[in-house]
């Protein structure tokens, strides 16, 4: 850590911590082990401070302060669970909820994010079951934008937290997803409508990963409920950046991919990793039996593993014994695992008796 960062002392709910003066109250709370709820805030992505769900009481301040936006000062004393704070947070959450278009999704039942929605979770945490500000008549419904093959935007569910805007602009740095208008009329201009092909959108889905509600979603989410799936942490099979991701599987089939934090991808994925890395696994045309070409017809015929492996072993042994190991060669796959490559390499050297072993590094 740089010596230039001055440390200050802050007390959060009675816990004293020393933190750099560049920290927010939220970060200091984190260090003190105090949970402060957030909604529009997303670390390194967005801190517009609009939802006020993270508000806290600071001794000496005339009003509640948003923890995500307020820098600490030396000697600051913060309270996060006073009655005033609790009531204020509930009020703020009711304001957010009033604008969430609950009736458009039959109150969460039909929403793809049901069970994985941060707004839903926060309402449970803060004991908000309805909004005092909900419109008495259903609001006019806006059309869902879903022409993009992978991504959909339902403006009715949007709470204008702008985490998606942060994801596109401060994370993917693609600058295609922006806000329109201002204040109460703020709207999200998501490029998933009929003109999606003419936009600069790369369909990376980092916006959907940042969205706390069902407003921006990967369309694949509609095929499963969050409690029906298992997640397996793995490494993307495409380029060599080595992005970390979770394969989301339901009933033995991969149905989605979610980004995970890794040192090289920092929580991001691209369109290939997010959307193009698993359909092939379950493709109808996967090979499922060994095939031996009939020398007379030139057609492939299904064979048992024993037949195929014996044929391979005997043919390679014959060529090796008649012409020497250097008449054989083996190529490894640069897409497969280290363990696979090692065993192929060992097979070539130990039983083919050749060093004619290579991989597709050159192509």
């Amino acid at each position, binding site marked *: 850590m740089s010596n230039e960062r001055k440390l200050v002392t802050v007390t959060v709910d009675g816990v004293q911590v020393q933190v750099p003066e560049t920290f927010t109250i939220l970060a200091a709370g984190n260090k003190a082990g105090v949970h402060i709820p957030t909604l529009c805030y997303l670390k390194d992505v967005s801190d517009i401070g609009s939802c006020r769900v993270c508000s806290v009481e600071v001794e000496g301040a005339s009003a509640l302060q948003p923890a995500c936006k307020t820098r600490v000062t030396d000697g600051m004393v913060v309270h996060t669970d006073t009655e005033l704070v609790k009531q204020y947070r509930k009020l703020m959450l009711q304001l957010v909820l009033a604008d969430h278009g609950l009736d458009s999704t039959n109150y969460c039942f039909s929403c793809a994010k049901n069970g994985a929605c941060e707004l839903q979770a926060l309402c449970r945490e803060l004991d908000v079951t309805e909004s005092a500000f909900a419109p008495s008549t259903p609001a006019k419904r806006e059309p869902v934008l879903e022409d993009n093959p992978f991504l959909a935007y339902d403006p009715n569910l949007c709470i204008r937290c702008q985490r998606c805007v942060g994801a596109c602009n401060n994370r993917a740095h693609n600058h295609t997803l922006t806000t329109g208008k201002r204040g109460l009329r703020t709207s999200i201009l998501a490029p998933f409508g009929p003109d999606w092909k003419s936009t600069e959108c790369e369909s990376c889905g980092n916006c959907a990963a940042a969205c706390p509600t069902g407003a921006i979603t990967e369309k694949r989410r509609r095929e499963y409920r969050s409690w029906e799936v298992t997640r397996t942490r793995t490494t993307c099979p495409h380029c060599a950046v080595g992005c970390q991701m979770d394969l989301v599987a339901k009933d033995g089939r991969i149905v989605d991919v979610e980004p995970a934090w890794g040192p090289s991808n920092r929580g991001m994925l691209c369109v290939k990793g997010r959307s193009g890395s698993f359909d092939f696994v379950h493709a109808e045309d996967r090979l499922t039996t060994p095939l031996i070409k009939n020398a007379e017809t030139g057609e492939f015929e299904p064979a048992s593993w024993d037949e195929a492996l014996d044929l391979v072993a005997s043919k390679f042994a014959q060529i090796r014994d008649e012409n020497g190991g250097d008449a054989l060669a083996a*190529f490894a796959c640069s897409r*497969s695992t280290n363990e696979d490559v090692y065993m192929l390499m*060992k097979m070539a050297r130990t039983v083919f008796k050749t060093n004619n072993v290579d991989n597709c590094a050159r192509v």
Partner: protein
Amino acid sequence: MTNTIADITQDSDVIMLVGSNPEEAHPVLGMQIRKAVENGTKLILVDPREIGLAKYADIHLKLRPGTNVAFANGVVHILIKEGLVDEEYVASRTSGFEELAKMVESYTPERVAEICHIDVRDLVAAAKLYGQANAAPIIYCLGVTEHSTGTEGVMSLSNIAMVNGKLGKPGCGVNPIRGQNNVQGACDMGAQPNTFTGYQKVMDPAVVEKFEKAWGTDLNPNEGTKATEVFPAAIEGRIKGLYLFGEDPVRTDPDTNHVIKALTNLDFFVVQELFMTETAKLADVILPGRSFAEKEGTFSNTERRVQRVRKAVDGPAGAQLDTWIFTEIMQRMGYDQPHLSAAEIMDEISSVTPSFGGITHARLDSAEVGGRGLQWPCPNAEHPGTPIMHVGKFAKGLGTYSTAEYRPSVELPDGEYPLMLTTGRILYHYNACAMTARTEGLNEIVNSSFIEINTADADELGIADGDRVKVTSRRASIESTARVSGKTNPGETWMPFHFQDGNSNWLTIAALDNIAKAPEFKVCAVRVEKL
């Protein structure tokens, strides 16, 4: 890479990006380069096309394909003339600077600008911007390596970094962005004709003896043949049997006719695959393997970072784990190889590979590693891995310079084939599309062959944007769709190699780099006609 993605995109003042289009080929790196530039890092782009990052670049040297060595020698020339040599670094850490200085003497900015078709002022400004930076990485990709002078291109770029003292330091280095997810690992694992795991040399008798002892069998003492040289050897009948695991050279290797001729001339050809690829169709036996989602294991990314691959689903009945298949063949050929789990195989790898000595699945899964993987060299279980190579000292002692002169590409445009063709990747597909073309949404975005052609050339040929065209090289003709723009320079065209409806590899030349034997995918001569 000598450094990490985090340090070259967060701790550098200037990035020199050569022959690399990360926004499309390595998109999550591209995002981080965009971020770096928006946060104030200067970008020097050295690339023959107006790629997306060109609008982010402070200087774009839109150079002629195949002239990287001239460019690099020119930069070294300018660094010397401008007094930007790190004298202390050169004296204490490298040898042979005088020979280098003598060689680059003739690479005056004027001469280099003429060879590379670039503005002399931009070249000088780029060299000074890099040379004066506190921290600046050189990042390169296949635009440097896929030439008949590819290895020399890489070494010439290293000259720049060494002369300027920018190797073995944070935010610096010479950083190849490897093409495929585990091409680093495939090389690390000894799938190379001249090295065992961890680059232990086949020509070193002590190494061979070590592996003979570890594996309990005699080994062939001769260095092997490189993949790209196996094809000519098959045509000549010197190679009679080929075992090909998960590759599709009919689509991805240069000069498709030549590849097909070689594969069909084999006595016995085995392909281990997920799908009936164009290459598998030519096999005598096809063995169905398992995809990355159906197995445990590791990949090594471009940062030398070994990370876990984990099994999420069983996959289709009938296919077998690839390691099971190799083990069965070894047993059936008389070698006593037990069936091992992926974790046990990694234990064996660690035991025979000094640079992997501290890497096990258990450690990769541990709280200590915390999902960050381990970067080799990682010699023992206590070693934290090596984020930056060559700190304080080069792995081999003193750093040496390449004194390679610029040589033109093997096949240059002429009267009959007047345009230069370069090939590459696009964002939405991967190599031969075996994986990506099975996602409908990606096909909806783009799924067919195209050729980028400069507006001036298109006007002369009477070709409009979107026209169907015939593209012919000395090897074959294909049909494609013209995309007319200023993206390529006049006289230069570009095609993706993904799409089988007009695969550029029928056209490309199987000319090989004189050292690494990579094919010259980036330069051949073609003729384009309106259909």
